[in-house]
């Protein structure tokens, strides 16, 4: 039962993250929300595996965590190159 | 190690080109990739001929991949309905690869050859895979292989507009394939199986349920999109126009027909057998669109200034003929439909091969700029004449035979049929107009400058010439394709998948 409670809590925070991601206003808000959403997903996955009694699926959560990291890094890399490109344009 | 390869023909038809594709990627020197591709295409052609000859004798080739019996595994089946099209597909691949050698070398940088030819083989494998498969989902997988491969091939076109054309094609093609996937999913939901024969057995029990009706709708619309049925043809004209010439030859001969095949096979075996109303709905959906397509696209072709676009619009009109025959739901109608797939492939490949030959000497394939080309390229022009005659349906050419069968089938329909015969004749007249317009420019218009005799390279000429002659051969001796089409029509009407 406690697991269900936890699940509901996580779901609630997910909703909050989605609200932030959708409403913005700045891009950084959204990126942060996306990242946070990824984290919540990992948690939710773990909880759900316990609820369903399939703890052998916990490694899935691991995969999600890893992928989330790569996603964030890719976003950062994108900004980095954007920034450079814009700076480069100013220099010219 | 004693084994009988003839037992494995259906799978070989698919995996020979499929598995050759990655190997071709490794072949760097420029002629090698091409030569390997041609060899593989010819091998596939030989396999298709072998199977067609066995089907003609009444065999049905059945194959269970992985040794799992249907419906648990994936089954392949070659019968009269697909045997002829397999010959068309592999034949078109060989013809186009052989007959457009110089054109390909001129349009695709040698560095990109291995990738290009790998995609070529994938297209052949994908289309063959769709044809031999007796599993609804497996058809989707191979549909995607063929679609991706054709996107790649078309994107190889030199003009930047090729990119726009291919993007449009990609979007519409994906929507079409996804619709098909939805339809298959809905049927699977109601029957629990993916094997076509098994589905055909189970669908009648649930035929009146809404998901099945919905599935019929999704599958028909999805495949009609893939088949470029009017008015879902908007992707086709520019795609054929801007594709490399060799690709136009290949796709025009068989690209959309495979989708038509899937449509007919699924519709006749799954829906019409189980639901009486369905056949009426099917006919009511297809017939007006087919007729409109015939008229509108022929008319557009009459006023089209670009040679290849004109031919592309004519292709859409021809798809109309094919589906008009099918929408009659009679044996004669289906015979004409299947036969026309074969005959139109002959005519269009000859015409596009001629266009490829013309492109070797004329930078610009606008019809107006080809003035007097017949003096410079008499053989090419003769090929164009023969292909054009076949497209019009002049007696003695292949195009006539299928049109005649179609008209006979239409006349069986009584008064309504008479009107459709009139439409077919009017559109033939339009075909005369657009073919003639080109011929007149080729033969009788004074060229801007002095033109010397300068034909296309010999290999291209020989292949284009033989494609044109095939139109005559099958116009005068249509017995074999006709027999296969009749068998196929019986199979389809019989409802057996």
């Amino acid at each position, binding site marked *: 039962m406690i697991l269900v409670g936890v699940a509901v809590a996580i779901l609630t925070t997910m909703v909050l993250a989605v609200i932030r991601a959708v409403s913005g206003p700045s891009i950084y808000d959204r990126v942060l929300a996306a990242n946070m959403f990824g984290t919540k997903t990992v948690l939710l996955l773990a909880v759900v595996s316990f609820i369903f009694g399939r703890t052998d699926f916990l490694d899935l959560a691991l995969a999600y965590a890893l992928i989330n990291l790569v996603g964030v890094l890719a976003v950062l890399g994108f900004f980095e190159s954007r920034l450079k490109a814009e700076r480069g344009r100013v220099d010219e | 190690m004693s084994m009988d390869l003839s037992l494995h023909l259906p799978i070989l038809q698919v995996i020979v080109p499929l598995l050759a594709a990655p190997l071709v990627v490794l072949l760097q020197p420029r002629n090698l990739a091409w030569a390997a591709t041609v060899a593989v295409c010819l091998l596939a052609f030989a396999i298709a001929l072998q199977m067609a000859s066995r089907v003609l004798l009444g065999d049905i080739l059945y194959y269970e991949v992985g040794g799992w019996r249907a419906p648990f595994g994936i089954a392949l089946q070659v019968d009269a309905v697909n045997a002829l099209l397999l010959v068309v597909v592999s034949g078109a691949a060989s013809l186009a690869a052989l007959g457009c050698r110089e054109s390909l070398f001129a349009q695709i940088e040698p560095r990109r050859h291995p990738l290009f030819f790998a995609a070529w083989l994938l297209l052949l494998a994908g289309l063959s895979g769709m044809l031999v498969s007796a599993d609804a989902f497996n058809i989707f997988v191979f549909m995607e292989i063929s679609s991706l491969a054709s996107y790649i091939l078309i994107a190889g076109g030199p003009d930047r507009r090729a990119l726009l054309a291919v993007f449009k094609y990609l979007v519409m093609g994906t929507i079409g394939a996804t619709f098909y996937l939805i339809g298959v999913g809905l049927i699977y939901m109601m029957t629990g199986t993916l094997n076509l024969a098994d589905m055909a057995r189970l669908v009648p029990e649930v035929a009146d349920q809404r998901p099945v009706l919905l599935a019929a709708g999704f599958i028909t619309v999805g495949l009609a999109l893939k088949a470029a049925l009017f008015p879902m043809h908007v992707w086709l004209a520019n795609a054929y126009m801007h594709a490399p010439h060799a690709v136009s030859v290949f796709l025009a001969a068989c690209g959309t027909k495979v989708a038509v095949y899937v449509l007919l096979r699924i519709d006749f075996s799954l829906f019409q057998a189980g639901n009486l109303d369905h056949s009426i709905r099917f006919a009511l959906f297809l017939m007006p669109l087919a007729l409109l397509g015939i008229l509108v696209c022929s008319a557009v072709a009459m006023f089209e200034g670009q040679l290849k676009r004109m031919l592309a619009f004519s292709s859409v009109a021809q798809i109309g003929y094919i589906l008009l025959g099918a929408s009659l739901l009679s044996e004669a109608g289906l015979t004409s439909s299947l036969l026309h797939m074969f005959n139109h492939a002959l005519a269009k490949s000859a015409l596009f091969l001629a266009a490829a030959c013309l492109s070797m000497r004329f930078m610009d394939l606008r019809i107006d700029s080809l003035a007097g080309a017949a003096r410079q390229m008499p053989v090419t022009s003769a090929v164009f004449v023969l292909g054009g005659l076949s497209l019009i349906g*002049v007696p003695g050419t292949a195009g006539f035979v299928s049109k005649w069968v179609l008209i006979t089938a239409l006349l069986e329909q009584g008064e309504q049929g008479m009107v459709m015969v009139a439409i077919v*004749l009017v559109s033939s007249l339009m075909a005369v107009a657009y073919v003639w317009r080109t011929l007149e420019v080729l033969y009788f218009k004074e060229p801007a400058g002095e033109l010397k005799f300068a034909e296309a390279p010999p290999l291209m000429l020989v292949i284009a010439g033989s494609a044109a002659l095939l139109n005559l051969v099958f116009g005068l001796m249509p017995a074999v394709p006709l027999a296969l089409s009749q068998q196929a029509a019986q199979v389809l009407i019989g409802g057996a998948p």
Partner: protein
Amino acid sequence: MVIALCLLVPLCGAPLIVAAGQVSANLRETVTLVTASALAFLVWSLLPEVMDGGRPELFAFSLIEPLEIAFSVEPLGMMFAALASGLWIVNSIYSIGYMRGNQEKNQTRFYACFALSLFAAIGIAFAGNLLTLFLFYEMLTLSTYPLVSHKGDQDTVSSARIYLGVLLTTSIGLFLPAIIWTYHVAGTLDFAMGGVLAGHLDGPAVGLLLGLFVFGVGKAAMMPVHRWLPAAMVAPTPVSALLHAVAVVKAGVFTITKVIVYIFGVEFLFSVPESSWLLYAASFTIIVASLVALRQTNIKRLLAYSTIAQLSYVIMAAAILKPLAEIGAAVHMVAHAFGKITLFFAAGAIYVASKKTELSQLAGIGYRMPWTMTAFTIGALSMIGVPPTAGFVSKWFILAGAFEASNYVAIATIIASTVLNAAYFLPIVFSVWFGKESAELQQNDHGEAPFAAVLALCITGALTILFFLFNGPLIALERQVAAGLP
């Protein structure tokens, strides 16, 4: 066997002419003449057998059961083939003179297409069924297009387009549906004595089908599908001769006669009153075309309208549906061919020699070109139907047929049109011989056309007269068609 050769000779002649044309003009023309002679020899060698009632057949191959490409020689076709192949020789001789005299370009294409159109004409003549006939009919249209548009300038091309457009549209839009309809009701397309439609069709449908055939065969130039014929006047004169006398329009009326005799069957048509409109339509065309001809000022246009009228003679004769009239229809094809080819040759000769094209310029020309104008006069008389010319023979038969049928419309038409013919030909003949050359024309000093041209027109002029005297074999041949009619 001979049939196959008859088809192969002109078909192979075309590429040979092209090949020879690469070498020299003389060789090319030799090849043309040899081909023409060989063809004529082969065709005429069939004549005895057909005269004896034989029907040589050639089965080429079957397209779709029961459609086949097959050939069969019967009297009408025999006559048409003999006429076309014989006149080809004369026409070739004439062409050599005309084309060289005019220094035309693209002569090789001209001769090659000529051979092809003869191939098509022979195919039409020997066709054993409607499908084969249709195939060669279309081939004839296509192979004559390059000839009509020979000059290649803007006017010519647009006129040639009218030619092609009318012929193709009518054949595909009307003729082909008629064939399909026939096949649908009769189940066969073979030509058979007595027709194939009897018992399968009745009432207005017969009239409608007949209409599809008559107007579908645009080459027969029934009004209102005659527009192509005046338009085709832009062609060089040998081509006009081909169109008017040798092959094209003859193919049209031949097809209609053949359809009436072998598809509908004369007896069957006779029993269906709805089909009688054809006679009236033909009469209408005869009268109107003659009236239009009366107003023409250009020689070739006048001849074109005269042809339209004469063609409808054939159709009207066939539509009288009496044995004598059927013979008259066949004979008129030949008679008109001789007369009209002479007239065209003469018109062409005048053009080559003096570049004159208008009637008004012809005054007094008879003394400059006596041979040409003599032949012209013979041709004109034949058109009117004055003995001793070929035209008289055929008109006689038609008139006899009309009396036999007590068909007063036909009789009146023949009489009226004869008067009209006389009204537009006699003034020309008169002014040619007795008119006075205007002053400005006198400076244009010229004599006869090149020898080859004059030779050709003399031959045809002589033939026009000879036919009056020696028409027995032809009539005997055509009696076979009429045999057994009521």
